[in-house]
């Protein structure tokens, strides 16, 4: 049973690992950059799934962390600091700090009020980005190149960057898996099922929820660091509420609270967007009804469908 449950993640990561080695297909820089983008958003979706799927905390401002991570790269680069060994810690630290402050305030509220207060903080981050005139303001800023790793420009080629993102995805996925099956993760899930009972048996839910919120924000900041490097461009557009909404849609499309679903959802969303928009200018006319149909007829998103197909139980 354990083995069957591992089939999906093993095949996902296996496919991602061999893709660049598949002859002409794998040497196509465009395909590599599309899949790298999918993996970056998969990291963001994984981090959102931690709070959305496991914590039942619907954050509608998660894209703010993408922006914070990206701006850490942009602002440091603008001052000549292109070293990832400096940029990544800064990106993670600022994301964590922002999550700590906004989380401490937001977690006072519940349900839709939580959704809206996280939206409020997301919007504040967005407008702050717009007001950064020295760093391009609304237009955003172009980076001089990808980040350096210990002084070496090893991420410059699409293939090298691909493996870099892949490595980060594996690490983040492993960390999230460890987290959700730990005692800490069980408390978080317990709170999702019955918050009052957890409080009654002596857990201070607030500190647990704040911790997971900070972890999720920090991981999404890492995705922001990678996104800035992939596009070599930083802009407030990474922080719009529409982008936060898209992240939620990715997680839901894949299937809530199953980590694998977050990766599948990000892939399905971005590849459908890429594929359909290549076929027709009116691709949203097809994508919109697709989402509605998924909700109506494929409960639990793609993972729900996968579980029904394979007969595996609750993958949580």
């Amino acid at each position: 049973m354990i083995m069957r449950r591992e089939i999906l993640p093993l095949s996902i990561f296996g496919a991602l690992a061999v893709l660049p080695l598949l002859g002409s297909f794998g040497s196509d820089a465009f395909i590599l950059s599309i899949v790298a983008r999918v993996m970056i958003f998969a990291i963001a979706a994984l981090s959102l799934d931690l709070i959305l799927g496991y914590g039942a905390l619907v954050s509608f401002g998660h894209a703010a962390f993408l922006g914070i991570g990206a701006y850490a790269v942009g602002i440091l680069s603008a001052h000549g600091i292109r070293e990832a060994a400096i940029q990544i810690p800064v990106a993670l630290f600022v994301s964590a700090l922002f999550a700590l402050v906004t989380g401490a305030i937001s977690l006072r509220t519940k349900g839709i009020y939580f959704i809206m207060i996280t939206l409020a903080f997301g919007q504040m981050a967005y407008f702050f980005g717009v007001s950064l005139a020295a760093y391009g303001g609304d237009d955003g800023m172009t980076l001089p190149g990808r980040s350096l790793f210990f002084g070496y420009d090893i991420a410059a080629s699409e293939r090298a960057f691909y493996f870099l993102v892949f490595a980060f995805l594996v690490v983040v996925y492993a960390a999230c898996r460890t987290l959700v099956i730990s005692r800490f993760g069980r408390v978080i899930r317990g709170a999702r099922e019955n918050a009052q009972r957890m409080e009654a048996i002596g857990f201070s839910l607030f500190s647990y929820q704040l911790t997971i919120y900070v972890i999720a924000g920090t991981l999404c900041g890492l995705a922001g660091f990678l996104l800035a490097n992939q596009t070599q461009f930083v802009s407030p557009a990474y922080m719009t509420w529409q982008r936060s909404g898209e992240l939620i849609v990715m997680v839901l499309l894949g299937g809530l609270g199953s980590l694998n679903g977050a990766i599948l959802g990000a892939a399905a969303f971005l590849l459908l967007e890429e594929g359909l928009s290549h076929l027709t200018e009116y691709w949203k006319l097809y994508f919109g009804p697709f989402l509605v149909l998924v909700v109506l007829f494929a409960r639990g998103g793609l993972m729900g469908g996968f579980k029904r197909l394979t007969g595996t139980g609750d993958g949580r």
Partner: protein
Amino acid sequence: MMKAKLFVTLGAVALMAGSAAAQEKLKVGIVVTLSGPSAVLGQQARDGFNLAVKQMGGKLGGLDTEVIVVDDELKPDVAVNKVKGLVERDQVNFVVGPIFSNVLQAIHKPVVDSNAFLISPNAGTSNFAGPQCNPNFFVTSYQNDQVHEVLGKTAQDKGYKRLFLLAPNYQAGKDSLAGVKRHFKGEIVGEVYTPLGQLDFSAELAQIAAAKPDAVFAFMPGGMGVNLVRQYRQAGLANIPFLSAFTVDESTLPAQKEAAIGFFGGANWAPDMKNPQNEAFVKAYEAAYNSVPGTYAMQAYDAALLIDAAIKSAGGKLSDKNALRAGLKKADFQSLRGNFKIGVNGYPIQDFYLVQVVQRPDGKFATSLREKVFSDYVDVYAKDCKPSN
């Protein structure tokens, strides 16, 4: 032995045929905004370019031409992805786009670092005109500031003493007002920045009414401009001269209609410009797309002519990038706007006019040339461009 030789010969023939076929086919990628409220600008650019290709029998520079259109959705990271698809997967020779400055910032590097040339039919930011100019980047529109400068110069020349400025709160808005102030030396009685995408200007109009300026300058592109112009007239302010940039043009006039009549804009062209090429262009565009072309369509049409001229001057050899670049710099074609040269930074050197909104005899609304404000105007950043880099 004979057989082997034959195979070799056949192979060589096939190879030559292959390379000849590869040279005969030109691929152009168009990346413009085709979704959201600003989609109409992208549609004009796309239609203008396609019209030129159609009129030349589907051939630019004598080569069969494939045009691939993609929508940047006005999202910079989406645009980067689409552009990478164009240059890496589709192997286009030219990328034509975008409409918006923030998208240009994002796609500039991926294109100019690739094997393709980037030709902007609209966005012309200051950074790429100055120190960051690039030999693979050309512009068929203008340097953004120049259009705003037209109105600043006009306000100064007409002797207005007190000017009220209005622009959206983003980089282009700030650049816009800086451009106006470069030539206007009178008093600025109000300088208001509104949130991008704001549609109700009642608060700002009340401030204008209270300030009683000699004239108003506004930069409000797209839907914002539609609303501002109509509300400006509704608020009874139309007796105060309305100078604007990208606020009253052929993309917004179908919605502004009578409300915009008499309002001023700055431009490098207007549909009623008198030259045979232009008259034919406007007629063909209106017949094909049932709307009056704006500068977006004209500049994209010129972009196609520029590519055509460059390929001809390079003798049809798409692989010879230096010859193509020389051809692009020479810009040996008859622009719809008449006077047109490419400057040292890849941006145009051209004339600028004050234009005014009129209703044509056929009932449609359009801008109309009033007076020439600048001749052979070079943007102020060109002197910072060192062509060696």
